[in-house]
């Protein structure tokens, strides 16, 4: 059960930011992480500030330069169902589709997924490879941070008390870019990722991005992959070099879900599969 607390639902961003000045207040989005935490842990906020009444956080639109602007409160199902709008970002919807269950996806928001800062958050890998920027608001004003700057550690974000993510800005990767998402679960049902991975390959601009989740205390964007790709586009060579890089970069742990060894194994398998997928068209949910 949840311990007694206060609840309020502001109607504007300004009001919300004001309310979040109160000590021990917490933002509430879909609640699918937060309510579980409030039931299980000793986290005892005095006030929940429900963000679902704030219109700014509900936006889902294409920007002038064909990028995607996702309000922090957009739910997984809204993302998945918005068809045309997000069709240029298949890895993102593939990832959203693997989050929990239909009931969860009706509540779980993009902002909440990122702010919870789980190392295996499923939206992280696709958003990392897409060079996503986050619009962070506070009473002091707005700032933009790259998505990678949000993670401090496992389930710890770098937001200051009183700060909110308002929007998630995903630049258009260009017509030539291909992307894919893979997720390893223990059953075919719903599960948190033992390992998840997204990749983006743009032969025209010579971009190659790989992000691996669940294998460190934050999602890991492999460093220097553009250069590797530009140096050699031979699939076998690229694969081998990326494998070595991934192997050296990730620091998976043994836990109740999988051993570090198995996670390493899956990373190697996924990396090869991902590169194959990126070399051809990507279709499907990416569930694996």
């Amino acid at each position, binding site marked *: *059960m*949840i*311990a*007694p*607390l*206060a*609840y*309020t*639902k502001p109607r504007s961003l300004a009001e919300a930011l004001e*309310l979040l000045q*109160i000590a021990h*207040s917490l933002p*509430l989005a879909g*609640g*699918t992480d937060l*309510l*579980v935490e*409030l*039931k*299980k842990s000793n986290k005892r906020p*005095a*006030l*929940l500030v*429900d963000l*679902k009444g704030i219109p700014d956080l509900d936006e889902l639109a294409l920007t002038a330069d064909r990028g995607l602007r996702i309000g922090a409160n957009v739910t997984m*199902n809204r993302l998945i169902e918005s068809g045309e709008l997000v069709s240029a970002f298949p890895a993102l919807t593939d990832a959203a589709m693997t989050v*929990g*269950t*239909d*009931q*969860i996806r*009706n*509540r779980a928001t993009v902002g909440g997924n990122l702010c919870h800062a789980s190392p295996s958050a499923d939206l992280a890998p696709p958003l990392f490879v897409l060079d996503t920027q986050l619009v962070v608001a506070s009473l002091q004003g707005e700032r933009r941070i790259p998505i990678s700057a949000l993670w401090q550690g496992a389930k710890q974000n770098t937001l200051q008390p009183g700060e909110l993510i308002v929007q998630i800005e995903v630049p258009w990767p260009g017509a030539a870019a291909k992307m894919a998402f893979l997720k390893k679960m223990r059953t075919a*049902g*719903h599960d948190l990722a033992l390992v998840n991975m997204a990749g983006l390959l743009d032969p025209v601009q010579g971009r190659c991005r790989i992000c691996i989740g669940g294998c460190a205390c934050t999602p890991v964007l492999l460093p220097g992959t553009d250069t590797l790709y530009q140096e050699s586009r031979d699939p076998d060579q690229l694969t081998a070099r990326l494998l070595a890089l991934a192997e050296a970069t990730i620091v998976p742990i043994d836990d109740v879900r999988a051993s570090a060894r198995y996670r390493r194994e899956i990373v190697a398998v996924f990396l090869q599969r991902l590169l194959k997928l990126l070399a051809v068209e990507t279709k499907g949910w990416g569930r694996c």
Partner: protein
Amino acid sequence: MLNPLEQTIISLQLRVNGLPVQEDVPAQMTLLEFLRQRLRLTGAKEGCGSGECGACTVLLDGRPVNACLVLAAEANDAEIRTIEGEARDGRLTPLQQAFIEHGAIQCGFCTSGMVLSAQALLERNPHPGREEIVEAIAGHLCRCTGYVQIVEAIESVAGKGS
């Protein structure tokens, strides 16, 4: 304005199974607790309290949600449907009828949630394929039936009508 920290009791207004409901509830009360304890609508069950089992599923503005992970306060102004509102005047819905005819029930603890998720699917998409049916009920654990007869029951309704 009221001191926000004093908003520990929330005045709720919502519709439940088509009827208006007005109640004061503690802010920390979940929608599931509200329905079960305050309204004595016990069709939605708590199988886990953490979003994993789907036994608590109700429809919030037409969409299936885990009532154990929604605060009652969040349902203010919402339209809630629970299993108790499905049959009208004692007449079962075609889906409820199909659950009985296809042996889609054993202990019955998962049944309310299953019926509601399937009903929401059919209202969105009257002719879903097997894949979509499986997806719609994948968030409902059933330890008894092995799911096959549940899928068949939903399919039988999906195949009918317009």
